[in-house]
């Protein structure tokens, strides 16, 4: 299904519509500019309808507590007040201004303008991400071409259509295609229409996009990141049990699928016996959390089991997971490793446990500098500041509690940048 000019079309019409879009874009760009207020308004109405239960039917595939969490988040994050705050934080001074006079130079008008046409290639690992990415493009006044991820279940398209229903003037700025990822010609055509491509995905995905993008197009990368939890002096941590339970819950609920999810638990030690005794203590907590958060759907359970069993066998083939020391529980495992490398775990509640004495942290993090994002901390309160300083100096973007590694914090940046500021350019006009 394609969404074009506020109407839906069959996927087979993609080629014709892209050709038509090429003629439309200059007309729209030269004719007017989208005000962020229109978008804020539409999102706010969407929020109200969501809270009234208008979309409950669309959310039946999610577990009930997940729907409740989403609604709670939407109530706060999609409100007019928060959106205005987001725009102010991320774009800074959006009002245009004139530079101070300086002898011998002309004054200029400075203002932020949309990039023009933004092509979003969204990943499917977070619900609503495609719609969210598109909304960010709209708030900055861009024309948006969105390629839906193949795993999308129709929810994104429905929400986007709602926005147009609330504020029909948005239709000129929204073009959604369900292009298959194998349709290189189609994706290339979309890239050729754009000023910038916003791409979410792994290193390989980004490489692929770089390959198809015309020279000169700006590529805005939201690459794959690796998160870890750092545990130091656990015996001296107040409420250590609750902290570990929080970490276990984080692992079980995200199944380690997000960029911010915990892949490795580092212990501030060099002693392998400490690793093992920690694992023995943590295993039942993780097992309990996994059990409480397990999907009830047998197809999902079976798939997760098959994936982790396959990973385990690949380990025996020497292709993945190191098999030195594995503690297994029902549906979970803790893999003890002697090295300190930050790497992707087999996911699905199969966590790596590694030693990382504080003194070596810099060396290890530098090795992973392209993939750093979130560090969860479980340590005595007096250590928090110094560890946060150490990690952020070495490239970490977010430092959180162990339980909050994937939590959203209003006002936070994404991978060290504000998304909105990447979707605009600054123009100068001589007075």
């Amino acid at each position: 299904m394609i969404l074009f000019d506020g109407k839906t079309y069959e996927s087979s019409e993609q080629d014709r519509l892209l050709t038509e879009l090429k003629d439309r874009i200059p007309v729209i760009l030269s004719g007017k500019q989208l005000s962020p207020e229109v978008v804020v308004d539409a999102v706010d109405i969407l929020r109200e309808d969501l809270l009234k239960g208008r979309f409950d039917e669309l959310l039946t595939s999610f577990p009930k507590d997940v729907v409740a969490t989403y609604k709670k988040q939407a109530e706060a994050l999609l409100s007019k007040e928060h959106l205005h705050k987001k725009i102010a934080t991320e774009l800074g001074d959006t009002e245009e201004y004139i530079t101070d006079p300086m002898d011998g130079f002309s004054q200029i008008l400075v203002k932020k303008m949309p990039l023009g046409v933004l092509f979003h290639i969204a990943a499917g690992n977070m619900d609503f991400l495609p719609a969210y990415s598109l909304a960010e493009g709209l708030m900055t006044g861009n024309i948006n071409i969105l390629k839906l991820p193949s795993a999308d279940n129709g929810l994104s398209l429905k929400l986007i259509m709602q926005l147009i229903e609330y504020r029909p003037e948005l239709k000129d700025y929204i073009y959604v295609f369900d292009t298959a990822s194998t349709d290189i010609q189609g994706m290339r055509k979309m890239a050729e229409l754009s000023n910038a491509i916003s791409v979410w995905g792994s290193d390989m995905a980004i490489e692929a996009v770089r390959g198809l993008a015309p020279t000169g197009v700006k590529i805005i990368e939201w690459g794959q990141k690796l998160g870890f939890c750092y545990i130091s002096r656990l015996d001296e941590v107040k409420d250590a049990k609750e902290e570990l339970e929080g970490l276990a819950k984080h692992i079980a609920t995200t199944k380690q699928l997000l960029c911010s999810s915990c892949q490795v638990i580092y212990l501030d030690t060099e002693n392998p016996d400490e690793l093992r005794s920690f694992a023995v203590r943590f295993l039942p907590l993780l097992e309990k959390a996994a059990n409480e958060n397990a999907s009830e759907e047998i197809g999902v359970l079976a798939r997760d089991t098959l994936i982790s069993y396959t990973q385990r066998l690949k380990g025996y083939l020497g292709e993945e997971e190191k098999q030195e020391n594995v503690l297994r529980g029902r549906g979970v495992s803790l893999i003890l490793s002697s090295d300190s490398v930050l790497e992707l775990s087999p996911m699905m509640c199969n966590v790596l446990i590694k030693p990382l004495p504080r003194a070596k942290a810099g060396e290890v993090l530098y090795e992973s500098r392209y993939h750093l994002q979130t560090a969860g901390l479980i340590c005595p309160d007096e250590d928090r500041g110094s560890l946060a300083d150490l990690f952020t100096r070495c490239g970490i973007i977010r430092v959180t509690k162990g339980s909050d590694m994937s939590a959203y914090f209003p006002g936070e940046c994404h991978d060290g940048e504000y998304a909105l500021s990447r979707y605009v350019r600054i123009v100068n006009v001589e007075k």
Partner: protein
Amino acid sequence: MKLRRKLFSSKYPYDCTKSELFLGACRENFDHLITHCEDYSKICRGLGITSSEDISKVEDIPVIPTMLMKQHDFRAGRYMVMATSSGTSGKMSRVRFEFGALWSALKMSLKVTRYHGIISMRPCRYIVMGYKPHRSNKTAVAKTAYLTTFLAPALSRKFILKHTPDGYKPDFESIVEALKKYEKGKAPVRFMGFPSYTFFLFRILEEKGLSFKLPKGSKIMLGGGWKQFYQEAADKETFYKLAKKTLDIEEENIVEFYGAVEHPILYTSCPAHHFHVPVYSNIVIRDPVSLEPLEKGQTGLVNLISPLCKATPILSIMTDDLGILHDGATCPCGVKSPYLEIIGRVAPDDIKTCAAGAADIIKGVKV
């Protein structure tokens, strides 16, 4: 491979008295694989099974998921023929067969099809709801669908998927034309291939208000999996009704096959539409979380076991299918062996990781 020969020479394809021979043939196969396939032996060592003496029941045999076979090419010595899975999700397993495996498979196919009355000397017309064989297509589905057209002498063969410069495309119109012609003739018509396309054909005929009275003895033979059409598959009754309405083919003339390239055993549905387990294989249903064997009647992952092949380690494989093994003693068809009911598939394996939205795009890396 003395025990394999003995097992595949069993006279009655649903003989329930051969479990000892079956286990023996599996252990014989295991001993061969572990000495001829290094990757298999690495996995077995990892799982703690180092010799056939560690295998006291079929459940003990190391299980290789087809998911792994799609990511890793296992080799175990010389082979004659290679087949690949149809790659529904873009990845394929490669399975190699040596002469002994092919010979055993042939003996099995003859015995099973004869038992089910599928072998016939009466010439008929075939409509293959699958691929037309082409040198660019190595999928087992294409090969087996084609081979099946030799179970009764063929007057003609028509294929619904045609190879075009843009890949395989379904061609329903020419099938409709052919049906108009066949209806007037005397030779029975046999449909063979993907159930999903057959279902679509029925739907198209129904929409167009077309129905045919095909000659007596016409059959619909379904294999190749329901693929992504499981939602439709939920309604088999509708399928049977549509077969009657659009082609005048009775329910008892609809025969289903189940199998996988990684487990090339021919499961053929009985008149009660049950897939009884033949003497050549065993099925273990495993817990979707712990992978422990489950009792009959419980739903879990389908683990298929057969000592058919020695050129690829497919002795015990785990499919992506979810199923139930039922006690066969109660089946009205008279076969006493347990029967498999396929419930569906595990959730799509394009799991949504950060890298997954991505994995989508990876398919197009070569630009």
